[in-house]
């Protein structure tokens, strides 16, 4: 069974790699340009996806709103407001689902057995004895995961994704940045996530796969990049979720006095919607 699961993972990675090789790449941005994007797959140093994307080349604020992450076999999610300006960039991602539909990707004999699991999950000890050993992890998995609950979630069809994250915020300003993650659910179980240190390495000595959260990179041209999450696939390709790059600040005219902040553009006229709300008459 372990081989089956590993094979499924291999398939997942292979599918991802296939996507990596589909299209031509874009060059790395640099200089004074600031930009932000939701998802990218980088192969041989070349960006393959980088969407949704917005950049500011002249310091003016450029924004984008509300779109889905590009289709890929690894994760799904929604992008809220994202913007790039003079030496600043930010993005909000919501409802990130990692491994959604994973059951569909498993071998048929594996998936067909799920429906029969319900009574069997009760036989799973609360502290399972057969968790595979992963030496790179600082403590055994069976101390942090309730496998019986996960089993029951899977059997009842409630487990729709392996890892879900309600909110990811990535932002940079000048030569610093932040990544905030809120509302993490792993195998259907809420997980309390502390603050992310810069370049938090996951599985650092695993030759086939490394995962880095809050990756921060200072480039030679003076720009600074912060990536919320980076999955490196054997050094051949990497998947980047949520990336903000701040270029060099553009020189500003010496101001005699502080200018009044510009008001945002006019709000749209409302459109009536049908609904029911008893009001106080």
């Amino acid at each position, binding site marked *: *069974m372990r081989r089956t*699961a590993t094979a499924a*993972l291999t398939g997942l990675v292979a599918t991802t790699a296939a996507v990596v090789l589909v299209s031509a790449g874009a060059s790395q941005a640099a200089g004074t340009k600031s930009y932000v994007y939701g998802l990218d797959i980088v192969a041989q140093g070349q960006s393959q996806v980088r969407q949704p994307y917005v950049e500011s080349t002249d310091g003016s604020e450029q*924004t984008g*709103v*509300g779109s889905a992450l590009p289709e890929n076999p*690894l994760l799904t999610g929604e992008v*809220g*407001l994202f913007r790039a300006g003079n030496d600043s960039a930010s993005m*909000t991602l919501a409802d990130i689902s*990692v*491994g959604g539909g*994973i059951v569909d990707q498993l071998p048929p004999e*594996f998936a067909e*057995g799920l429906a029969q*699991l319900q009574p*069997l*999950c009760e*036989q*799973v*000890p609360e502290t*399972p004895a*057969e968790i595979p050993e*992963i030496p790179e*992890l600082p403590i055994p*998995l069976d101390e942090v995961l309730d*496998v019986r609950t996960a089993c029951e979630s899977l059997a009842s069809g409630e487990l729709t994704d*392996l*890892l879900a994250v*309600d*909110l990811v915020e990535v932002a940079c300003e000048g030569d610093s940045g932040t990544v*905030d993650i*809120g*509302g993490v659910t*792993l*195998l259907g179980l809420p*997980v309390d*996530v*502390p*603050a992310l240190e810069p370049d*938090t390495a*996951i*599985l650092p000595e695993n030759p086939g796969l490394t995962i880095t*959260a809050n990756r921060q990179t200072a480039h030679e041209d003076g720009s600074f990049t912060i990536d919320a*999450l980076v999955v490196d696939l054997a050094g051949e390709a990497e998947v980047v979720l949520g990336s903000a790059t701040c270029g060099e600040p553009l020189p500003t005219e010496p101001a005699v006095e502080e200018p009044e902040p510009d*008001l*945002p553009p*006019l*709000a749209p*006229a*409302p459109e*009536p*919607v*049908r*609904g*029911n*709300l008893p*009001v*106080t*008459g």
Partner: protein
Amino acid sequence: MGESRTGSGFGSGVRALASGLVYLVVLAFGATAVSLVVSPGDDAAATDERPAKNRVTLASLKAATTRTTLPRAPRDPDPQGVTDGEVVHPHSVLPLYAAPGRRPFAKVGPKQFGDTWLPVVERRGGWSRVLLPSRPNGSTGWLRTKQVERRTSPYLIRVHLGSRTLELVDRGTTVGSWTVAVGAPGTPTPTGRTFLLGQLVDDSQSFSPVILPLGSHSDTLDTYGGGPGTVALHGWPDGSVFGQAVSHGCVRVPADALDALSQVPLGTLVLVDEQ
């Protein structure tokens, strides 16, 4: 023996399945969370700068809507103050904070009656304080400015309970003034600062072609007609009510006023005073 072996086989299979899933999760992404879970002790001891915010779990927060009460929401610091007209729209569900950098106490979504637009009443650094549509009246919350779409409404709506008039102000100039009906003495229209929350066509109501619910609620009626006591601007078929204090809290306006108000962007500030 046989039963035992069979049970053991099933159990072993399930354990292997669960183990395989865990292995898959860890390798696919879950190790991120696992490694974070296993090191909270050190982080807690170090009391990092953002521990509270990182415990945000949107699912556990109460949504700020006209049907909810948020007792922990900070109150409007200037209930008769005029703003520069900025309104903001969240494009996804966002946490609401009691103060910049504090723990969130609620959340607000992108849709209520159509798109959610909230007026900004204060700014501090990268934060914007907005009025909320929940009870109690005057509820506010802080949002991160970078997370919302910002626009400006040139309008301001003033309701004067004493003179029973409603003024529509455009860029500082009164462009319309009407005699209206306001709340009766036992069910007064609440004073203070609120906003246009939505624009509803309600097929179950016959008194007005469109209803403009506000962010405020009756202070004397916990519920009304099955609703949460939301105050609204709307029309009324009998013109004799205008100039009277006869409603249950809503402001009844003439048809031409309703036409004009229907063009005013959501989130626009509504100031209700005793004048």
